[in-house]
């Protein structure tokens, strides 16, 4: 191979601009640059490291039942690790004198851990806070604003307080969504008690309680094992269109103007939380709506034709 040194230098990105100019004139450059640049387009799958790390931990738990490592390390270290995750996901932990708070901005998801090692996943534009001083393992209490998925470790009473109502459990997995006039609780494991105004009811796995503008509805035999937003999808099961647009605004940090759209339309389906164009298509196309993106503003109107 002629010019071998030069080619290697070039691929390593070590060439000076002058050298590069000379090199570009050679016959070799044309053919190798084609090989080099097309090879760059090959795309291995990008990993979601948060998810793969969780899988890794399951694998670790499964392989090392033997006394080796893990357990002794997991006490406060795990708690520290959770804090790092929270920071990594550009959330911030506010160590006020006695409050732990985690909150997410538009389009973010954050994971955090409570003093009892229960896990919490926060959806976009949500916040939770825990009072560290009054935390008591026999009466666990969390304040939530927005939407979150809880994996509660077994133990005594665990209560999630939201402005719309409260949820009480022992050890279980469930999702709470509280957005203005919308309040929804879905149970994935165990039993969940929901208290909303004067209503009190108990949810078992696969059951969902929803209250929109004071009108309550219960659904049973849902099959999903985790809320879809953990996989960056927002899903709706017959939800008024306005609330769907609200969620979209939270996921993408945009302003949606949809005054001409009939607010009585209910939407069943979902959208992707990472690609705005795609998300708009998946909501607008089936409902025969048109959208126009203009910077941070999106205008949605009924399809004229």
């Amino acid at each position, binding site marked *: 191979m002629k010019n*071998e040194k030069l080619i290697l230098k070039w691929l390593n990105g070590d060439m000076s601009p002058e050298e590069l100019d000379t090199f570009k004139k050679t016959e070799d450059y044309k053919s190798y640059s084609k090989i080099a640049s097309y090879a760059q387009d090959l*795309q*291995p799958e990008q990993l979601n490291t948060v998810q793969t790390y969780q899988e*890794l931990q399951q694998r670790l738990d499964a392989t090392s039942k033997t006394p080796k490592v893990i357990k002794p390390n997991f006490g406060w270290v*795990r708690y520290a690790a959770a804090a790092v995750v929270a920071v990594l996901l550009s959330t911030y932990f506010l160590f006020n004198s006695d409050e732990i708070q985690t909150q997410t901005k538009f389009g973010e998801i954050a994971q955090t851990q409570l003093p009892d090692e229960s896990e919490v996943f926060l959806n976009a534009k949500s916040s939770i806070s825990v009072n560290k001083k009054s935390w008591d393992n026999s009466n666990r209490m969390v304040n939530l604003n927005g939407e979150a998925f809880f994996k509660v470790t077994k133990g005594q009473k665990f209560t999630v307080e939201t402005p719309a109502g409260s949820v009480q459990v022992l050890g279980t997995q469930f999702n709470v969504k509280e957005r203005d006039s919308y309040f929804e609780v879905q149970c994935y494991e165990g039993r969940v008690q929901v208290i909303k105004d004067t209503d009190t009811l108990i949810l078992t796995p696969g059951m969902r309680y929803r209250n929109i503008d004071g009108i309550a509805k219960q659904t049973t035999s849902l099959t999903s094992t985790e809320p879809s937003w953990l996989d960056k999808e927002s899903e709706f099961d017959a939800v008024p269109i306005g609330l769907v647009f609200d969620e979209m605004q939270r996921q993408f940090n945009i302003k949606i103007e949809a005054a001409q759209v009939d607010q009585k339309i209910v939407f069943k389906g979902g959208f992707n939380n990472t690609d705005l164009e795609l998300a708009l298509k998946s909501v607008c196309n089936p409902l025969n709506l048109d959208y126009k993106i203009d910077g941070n503003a999106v205008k949605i109107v009924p399809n004229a034709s």
Partner: protein
Amino acid sequence: MKSKDSENLCKEQTYKNFYTSYVQGAKNFALYKCGDEAQALDLTQEAFVKIWQNCADIDFAKAKTYLFTTINNLFLNVIKHHKVVLNYEKNSVQEDRSYQDPEYLLEEQEFKTNLNQAIANLTEAQREVFLMNRIDGKKYREIAEDLNLSIKAVEKRMSTALASLREQIPNI
């Protein structure tokens, strides 16, 4: 001998940072070897399990090399070997391409197919070095470090890989 927490892989926080920094590169490396995404991830995870299990014995500075070596060893233990064929990034949006001359598009397609075939025909040693440089954008020095080779050896593999690719692709 007490090392700092930030260099102690038995500390979960350190371990997690280490994982987050290198898992993608390690998985890609495994992919260049075995050619199957699921298997590549499996090998990589297994290697990280090994690191956790031996966390006390691994020098933090050598951990990265240890990771790649472990993947390589695990790979050698896997009997099933796939032909390594990678996929191009999907061009989901068709509109922005439609103005292009169909002949050009056809040629481009053909070139991609040829290149992919040629990459699959490289030796394992050539392929991993070439793709780590091209796809992961690593310098020869970094590759040498990861694979525990000399920089000279990496350069040698790189240049034989290029020569082989050029030879295999007709009319370039």
